[in-house]
């Protein structure tokens, strides 16, 4: 009873804070914060599955979120016809080689007996596929990148509704997670951490440098939206009628309305993931996962396949992170590979989970809200703090300028300190895990 009251209290405070921002600053800002809070909560739920349920340390959250973002772009952007006519053949050949390599590798994996020879055979196939791909596909990429490089210079996407990308982005992230987990799970726990760190750096490097696919650092902007555009709303009769009835200005209200639509979509996903996670955690499966986390040796003595369960939960968590990554790119309306920073996408999510309460889904959601809120509001606070601290110095003082310019780096230090402090003084988080016997 007391715990549920505490939950309600924390969430009420959080809602109050967002309303306060709406009143004090602007409703537009409050809703942007709310939207990112919702996405962060979904991502934190994914990491909570890995860390909270199973004790797996994933340092590559950034990579899985980026895969979701990539999928959002690939699904929603219309295909670039000129690029397909100029280089369609080469692109199909490349895709064919890629798929063929994948199929042969998977067949070998399933058919051959499990030993070093199988691994070697798969590796040979993959290397051969890579070399063929380089030989046949490299000239094609140059052709694609030459087609109108200022506006496109890439193949585009499938031109499908962007909502489809959310589950697909999750699937892509889950597939990569399976590959990484298959190799590193079952070995020391640190290996998973190091391997995920590596794969996430590689994924972001691919996004940054494969211009034919993602336009690289030129970014893909103007992804189609799942919700109406402000301009269209302002010309729609029912919307104008609504504004008149509410007595608001259509221009301001249209942007609030769009953000509300997003918030509705994200809330549906969040509630769905939360409901499923809660169901899973309370099921026999959830009890088994906790048993494995708390004592691997006795769980395996009870006949549980620890490595397989770890792989399962690692993939599931990555799927959720991928979905959140696709949602984020949808909200941004653009794919900006250089925006994927480990601090923002890996570390911040970790802080959310640990501060919120690892192992408790509601805790992860609360962590997502609280930490994102302070992440956004920390910048004005930090600037203000630096301003006050340096107020005594002359305006042209070199130290003052240096401090003001470096205020942005304070975020790194602050978040690091929050994590260390939470780990030491409140390792169970704001909403600790409940275990009912």
């Amino acid at each position, binding site marked *: 009873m007391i715990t549920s009251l505490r939950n309600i209290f924390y969430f009420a405070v959080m809602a109050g804070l967002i309303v306060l921002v709406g009143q004090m600053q602007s409703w537009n800002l409050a809703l942007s914060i709310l939207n990112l809070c919702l996405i962060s909560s979904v991502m934190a739920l994914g990491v909570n599955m890995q860390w909270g349920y199973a004790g797996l340390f994933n340092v590559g959250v950034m990579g899985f979120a980026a895969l979701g973002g990539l999928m959002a772009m690939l699904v929603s952007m219309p295909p670039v016809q000129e690029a397909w006519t100029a280089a369609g053949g080469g692109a199909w050949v490349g895709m064919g080689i890629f798929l063929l390599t994948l199929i042969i590798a998977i067949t070998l994996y399933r058919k051959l007996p499990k030993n070093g020879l199988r691994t070697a055979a798969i590796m040979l196939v993959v290397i051969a596929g890579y070399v063929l791909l380089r030989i046949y596909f490299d000239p094609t990429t140059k052709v694609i990148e030459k087609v109108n490089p200022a506006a496109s210079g890439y193949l585009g996407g499938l031109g499908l509704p962007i909502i489809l990308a959310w589950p697909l982005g999750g699937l892509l992230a889950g597939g990569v997670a399976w590959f990484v987990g298959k190799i590193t799970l079952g070995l020391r726990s640190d290996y998973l951490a190091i391997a995920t760190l590596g*794969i996430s750096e*590689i994924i972001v490097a691919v996004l940054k440098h494969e211009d034919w696919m993602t336009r690289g650092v030129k970014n893909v902007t103007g992804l189609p939206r799942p919700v109406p555009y402000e301009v269209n709303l302002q010309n729609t009769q029912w919307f104008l009628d609504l504004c008149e009835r509410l007595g608001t200005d259509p221009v301001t209200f249209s942007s609030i309305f769009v953000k509300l639509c997003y918030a509705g979509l994200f809330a549906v996903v969040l509630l769905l993931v939360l409901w499923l996670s809660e169901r899973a955690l309370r099921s026999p499966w959830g009890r088994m996962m906790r048993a494995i986390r708390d004592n691997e040796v006795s769980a395996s003595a009870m006949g549980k396949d620890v490595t397989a369960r770890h792989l399962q939960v690692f993939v599931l968590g990555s799927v959720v992170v991928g979905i959140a990554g696709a949602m984020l790119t949808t909200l941004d309306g653009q794919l900006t590979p250089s925006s994927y920073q480990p601090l923002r996408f890996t570390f911040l999510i970790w802080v959310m989970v640990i501060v919120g309460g690892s192992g408790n889904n509601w805790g992860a959601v609360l962590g997502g809200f609280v930490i994102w809120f302070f992440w956004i509001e920390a910048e004005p606070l930090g600037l203000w703090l630096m301003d006050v601290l340096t107020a005594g110095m002359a305006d042209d003082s070199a130290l003052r300028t240096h401090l003001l310019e470096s205020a942005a780096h304070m975020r790194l230090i602050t978040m690091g300190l929050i994590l260390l402090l939470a780990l030491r003084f409140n390792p169970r988080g704001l909403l600790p895990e409940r275990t009912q016997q």
Partner: protein
Amino acid sequence: MSDPLNAAALLANFVIVPAIAYGSQLALGALGVTLIYGILRFSNFAHGDTMAFGTMITILFTWWFQSLGLSLGPLPTALLALPFGIAVCALFVLFCDRVVYRFHRAKRADPVIFVIASVGVMFVMNGLVRFIIGPDDQNFADGERFIIKAREFKQLTGLSEGISIKVSQSITVVTMIIVVAALFWFLNKTRTGKSMRAYSDNEDLALLSGINPDRVVAVTWILAAALATIAGTLYGLDKSFKPFTYFQLLLPIFASAIVGGLGNPIGAIAGGFVIAFSEITVTYAYKKFANYIVPGDWKADGLMQLLSTNYKFAVSFLILLMVLLFRPTGIFRGKSV
């Protein structure tokens, strides 16, 4: 006739010499990781940023010495500043151990808690470095740049390809040899070193025989800080100092330590060279080399580069995966499974 010689010179200039220097830097970094792993039993994610921190202190001292007019003649001033960098970095790392890790050690926390704590330390250090020196490139190398320039080599030998050796590269190798010799002497011959190895092999037995764990841990941190600062400074002299690059060095360093076998110092050195040589051979464009080697008028039409340099850390990742698949304990049988 001199084509094969030219090809060899080309390869030496662009692959072998840089790989030896880079390998030495990685080996020093991996030694620090492996020491921490052997004694404290966790993978220290803050090591890359410890390198950045130590290097930053060294750079600040270098600038100060330069403004005082101190210099080592042909050698870079940074060598003079290095001991100060090591001292400050060691103090800072000991402070981190005191306020962060000691608490978890007393509780005998899970290794993964230490790893998370080290990620926290990593971000604090990263933030400090960016706060103090900024996120941009800093070039602090001075003194002579080359021992032998490509042009001089060409005149000397009459080949059309030259080999150039930078001062920073030779300093790297010489320093690496001295540091590794000193480290092995310390670990094998001194009383403290022996107690460290005993502690690493069997903690309980070591405690029973009266080894002071606090002392062992403190010495380990000081050694790790020294190795990190030396590795970071050498890397910065050879290339340039940029905080983000040091964060990215974490992956090849971990890969070196794991490839050699975590907890095994000889393995760390071997692993460093394995990673460095593979990274550079895979990302080198062999076009010119092939043109020398292949007889007749055949000319390579592509760059003949296996992997673009943008993906150079993918090489360490792939080697890491291969080692984990075939020999999870590393080449030299570390203590990890």
